[in-house]
């Protein structure tokens, strides 16, 4: 194989990984958020006995199960992809990432899968308290899952607790491996992100119904609950993000330099914050730069003129792609600011008692619906692309990690993934939006026995008001 075709196969493998993980992360983000939301709803129902909470539960559990199904099958791909595409990485560092993944399966995946059946179909088979316990177990399972996978991922960013013998990683201290320096920040930031993204979906659904004048107490309740969540979490997320950034500055200075589009330090001059620009990797400068002096030092060093490492201090081969991470980072922070703004808007609307009526606010909330997920992806792109050219920071280069498949093989599988993912998960999202448009109804039908899932969902569609697509009548059954 020629040099360039090796390169092509390598880049295709990277695209394949980025593509499949990006799809996967969307579903767990929703299930992490919804599982906790469902646990809260069921607890409130048990405590207050108000049927409203139960109705909301029965509505959101449908969205949850849909996303869960998609999370499981896309996750299965991830668990095998380390071997199919990253054999070098797996032989080198499997001794660390393998046990962490094994713990994730043992302590989280089985737990979720074992109690999910009861949570979805067990209403008539177990008592309410046992059912509540099942919901809680599933919610805790999603959090445990995030913990292990983020320990593994964070170790790849800030590896410690190992030695290298015969070109392989040998773990020496498991506590150091799990609680590596970037892990706490990444875990908290990711879980908050999942809560935020889910709350935005809930709020945006409610806003849509209110704008369509489909009002009922359920819709108002979920708008209110979601907005409280965002009010608490969005500002918190910015603070955590700031700490996360400081941590990255300490351990991966090249990533921060790339994020900031910061090329060189002039002696004695504070680091500016570049608001806008187009970093050019070849010319080593930014086009169209707009910057604020001192602000970079202030944010990253919390000082008036301390300098931040600059890209030119790193060899060319060790620089992450600044053009991409400069922008993905700004997308994340920009949306984060909009979320805080939405939260403040809601405080004002509540105070004016217009939370359920203010058209401006509701339209804004509606539009913000998908931004949580977009922000999560932007954040991950920043994190992962900013780590390049390393797969395990400072230890192994991504180029040495890849399995030597031919270009034709990798392009074939990549094409298959793209096709299947867009078709299957695309339809999944359409089904989800359909359900969201029906919205929660008072007296939501129980999803009781396995058999009545049929009643709980399909027939809901057919009897639900507002939902009679002309081309589909129940009599058109395929025989």
């Amino acid at each position, binding site marked *: 194989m020629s040099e360039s075709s090796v390169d092509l196969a390598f880049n295709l493998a990277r695209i394949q990984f980025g593509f499949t993980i990006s799809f996967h992360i969307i579903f767990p983000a929703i299930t992490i958020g919804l599982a906790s939301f469902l646990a809260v709803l069921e607890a409130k129902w048990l405590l207050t006995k108000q049927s409203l909470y139960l109705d909301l539960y029965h509505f959101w559990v449908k969205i949850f*199960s*849909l996303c869960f*199904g*998609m999370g*499981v*099958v*896309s996750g*299965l*791909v991830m*668990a*095998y992809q*380390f*071997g*199919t595409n990253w*054999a070098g990485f*797996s*032989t080198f560092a*499997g*001794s660390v*990432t*393998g*046990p962490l*993944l094994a713990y994730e*399966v*043992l*302590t989280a*995946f*089985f*737990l979720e*899968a*074992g*109690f*999910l*059946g*009861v949570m*979805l*179909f*067990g209403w008539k*088979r177990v008592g309410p308290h046992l059912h509540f316990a099942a919901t809680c177990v599933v919610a805790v399972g999603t959090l445990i899952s995030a913990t292990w996978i983020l320990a593994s991922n964070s170790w790849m960013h800030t590896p410690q607790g190992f030695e290298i013998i015969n070109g*392989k990683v040998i*773990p020496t201290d498991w506590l150091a491996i799990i609680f590596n320096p970037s892990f706490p920040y990444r875990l908290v930031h990711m879980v908050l992100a999942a809560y935020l993204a889910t709350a935005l979906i809930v709020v945006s659904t409610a806003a849509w119904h209110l704008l369509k004048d489909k009002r009922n107490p359920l819709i108002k309740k979920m708008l209110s609950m979601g907005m409280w969540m965002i009010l608490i979490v969005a500002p918190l997320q910015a603070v955590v993000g700031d700490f996360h950034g400081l941590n990255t500055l300490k351990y991966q200075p090249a990533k921060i330099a790339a994020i900031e589009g910061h090329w060189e330090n002039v002696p004695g001059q504070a680091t500016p914050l570049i608001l806008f620009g187009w970093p050019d990797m070849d010319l080593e400068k930014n086009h169209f730069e707009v910057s604020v002096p001192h602000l970079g030092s202030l944010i990253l060093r919390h000082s008036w003129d301390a300098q931040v490492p600059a890209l030119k201090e790193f060899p060319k081969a060790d620089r992450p792609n600044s053009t991409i991470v400069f922008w993905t980072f700004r997308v994340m922070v920009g949306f984060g600011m909009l979320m805080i703004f939405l939260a403040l808007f809601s405080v004002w609307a509540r105070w004016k008692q217009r939370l359920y009526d203010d058209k401006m606010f509701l339209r804004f909330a509606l539009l913000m619906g998908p931004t949580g997920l977009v922000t999560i992806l932007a954040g991950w792109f920043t994190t992962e692309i900013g780590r390049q050219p390393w797969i395990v920071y400072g230890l192994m280069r991504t180029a040495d990690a890849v*399995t*030597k*498949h031919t270009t034709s*093989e990798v392009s074939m*599988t990549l094409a*298959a993934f793209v096709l*299947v993912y867009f078709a*299957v998960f695309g339809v*999944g999202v359409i089904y989800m939006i*359909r359900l969201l448009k029906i919205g929660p109804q008072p007296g939501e039908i129980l999803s009781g*026995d*396995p*058999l009545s*899932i*049929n009643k709980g969902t*399909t027939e809901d569609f057919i009897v639900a008001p507002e939902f009679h697509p002309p081309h589909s009548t129940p009599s*058109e*059954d*395929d025989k």
Partner: protein
Amino acid sequence: MHIDLPLIWAIIILFGIMMYVMMDGFDLGIGILYPFFNIKEDRDVMMNTIAPVWDGNETWLVLGGAGLLAAFPLAYSVILSAFYLPVISMLLALILRGVAFEFRFKALEHERHFWDKSFIVGSFAATFFQGVILGAYLQGIKVVDNQFAGGQLDWITPFSIFTGLGLLVTYSLLGVTWIIMKTSGELQAKSYYLARILAFLLLAFILAVSVWTPLFNQAIAERWFTMPNMLWLSPIPLLVACIFYKLQKALTEKAHVSPFIYALLLVFLGYLGLGISIWPNIIPPDISLYMASSPPQSQSFALVGAVIIIPLILLYTAWSYYVFRGKVSADDHYH
């Protein structure tokens, strides 16, 4: 005290894969059998018998992958690289069928047939590729310098295609006896009939594989056909014969639960036979468990979790099957 960690891990992984084959086996089997049952209500019932448990069943496959990565990273990388195309095909097929559980019930009436097809195609392809991978694996993988060194289409052989078909039969037998256990009425009656045919087919496949593998692999032939091994191992074929007879009898007597148990036992024996053939290699023909092991620090760390947690998993999985015990019948549907 010396603990043979690689040995223990090999047993755990073999156990995980066995759980996978037996448990996801019957729910994949349901998908393979779908074409034989084309009444909507029958299909609803069939899917509902597995809806609460399929996710847990599939998790054993995730454990297989994760366990292999944790304990035998070399085997994980080499096997998955060698079977790149069939593994990816299997994963894509599992997506097609996995989403059908949710989508089928969320689809509008006129869309449902599409997810039925996706369930069928996905179940067929996932099973077939698993069988192909199994066959190609038994035939051996070419390794140089700890890397896969064979050609990308090495896995396509008459034998691997044959084991692919064999696994389709295996899983459908598990599926059909599961339906016998979980349903009643006409659905069940039809299943008795299908189960008979499938049992004979499975027996034929077991015989053929037993003759075929020793032919292409000297070591396997020696393992089975030299004294004293032959004596020690003779109960296995005898048990297969005996259980096959019991299964046929149970089907004639229209028993409800025992056919499923016998089918599981048959599959277990077949699995055991294959394990005996390749032991102690983890990448046939010549890389052993010990050569492919991760460092003891990794194996022992993960072992603590596995030993404590796997029994718990078995307990609550059993509980969840217990919660959903009993027949699922079409009549319930109209209540």
